[in-house]
């Protein structure tokens, strides 16, 4: 039992190293392999795309994990699902924050405005607020099981918005570019092979980074749980009088 936490984390440094190498490759390709976009797409500023879109993908992935883990937690009541959902939500919020910072920086010179209340931007902001609310909700109740159940409901209901965010550019008229799709990765965006490969490397790098961060965050959570249970054990332990 004592070796439980470190043994599980043996692969963590390896995953971290893989994520680091992939991120370095993605960054290099973003600046030196992908060609500069036309002025209409922001020129050099369009390189934000290689951080903005993979961050959005990681956000979707994180919230999908929250959704699945929340269902599993409500069905089984197992703490590990609650911890996984909590960890994924925290990291998802972080990456959607990056999306909401980098997007307006690109939009300002290209659209002539930082923000537009169109379907994509509004639904993305709503998604971010939902999961920020989810994280706040967890701290509202002093009973962790009750907080977990409440948060799980929000994690399930909140996920309804995720496909709306993704498909909003197809369902409604928005200023936001639709970008490459799996079915058509190059045609609609005007991407050549160098941009497509850079984009795919960035996607893999961000996914690896997310996997490492999630493993690290859940490990911290497990250790925190162990500290809590040891503290309870210490408080309830019968005291042996010390002979002087």
């Amino acid at each position: 039992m004592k070796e439980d936490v470190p043994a599980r984390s043996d692969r963590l440094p390896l995953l971290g190293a893989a994520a680091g190498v992939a991120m370095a490759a993605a960054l290099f390709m973003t600046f030196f392999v992908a060609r500069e976009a036309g002025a209409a797409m922001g020129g050099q500023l369009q390189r934000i795309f290689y951080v903005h879109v993979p961050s959005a993908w990681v956000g979707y992935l994180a919230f999908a994990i929250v959704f699945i883990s929340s269902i599993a937690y409500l069905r089984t009541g197992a703490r590990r699902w609650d911890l996984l959902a909590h960890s994924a939500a925290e990291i998802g919020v972080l990456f959607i924050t990056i999306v909401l910072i980098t997007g307006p920086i690109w939009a300002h010179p290209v659209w002539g405005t930082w923000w537009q209340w169109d379907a994509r931007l509004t639904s993305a902001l709503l998604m971010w607020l939902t999961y920020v609310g989810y994280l706040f909700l967890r701290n509202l109740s002093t009973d962790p099981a009750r907080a977990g159940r409440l948060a799980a409901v929000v994690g399930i209901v909140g996920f309804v918005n995720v496909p709306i965010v993704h498909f909003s550019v197809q369902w409604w008229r928005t200023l936001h570019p639709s970008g490459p799709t799996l079915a058509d990765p190059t045609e609609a965006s005007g991407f050549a092979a160098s941009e497509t490969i850079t984009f795919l490397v960035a996607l893999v790098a961000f996914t690896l980074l997310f996997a490492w961060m999630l493993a690290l965050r859940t490990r911290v959570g497990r250790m925190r749980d162990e500290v809590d249970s040891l503290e309870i054990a210490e408080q309830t332990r019968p005291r042996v009088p010390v002979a002087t």
Partner: protein
Amino acid sequence: MNVGWLVVAMGAAALCIGGYVALLLFRMRRIQSNLSELRDRIPPT
């Protein structure tokens, strides 16, 4: 001008990720020392 904003955007992203990871590692180190202290105090059952 655009390159300046590109640096700002990339820097903000790096700060978000780096800051969060640094916070996690700091928390892990603190909990780890807390954990070994508790394990030393409480004999295994």
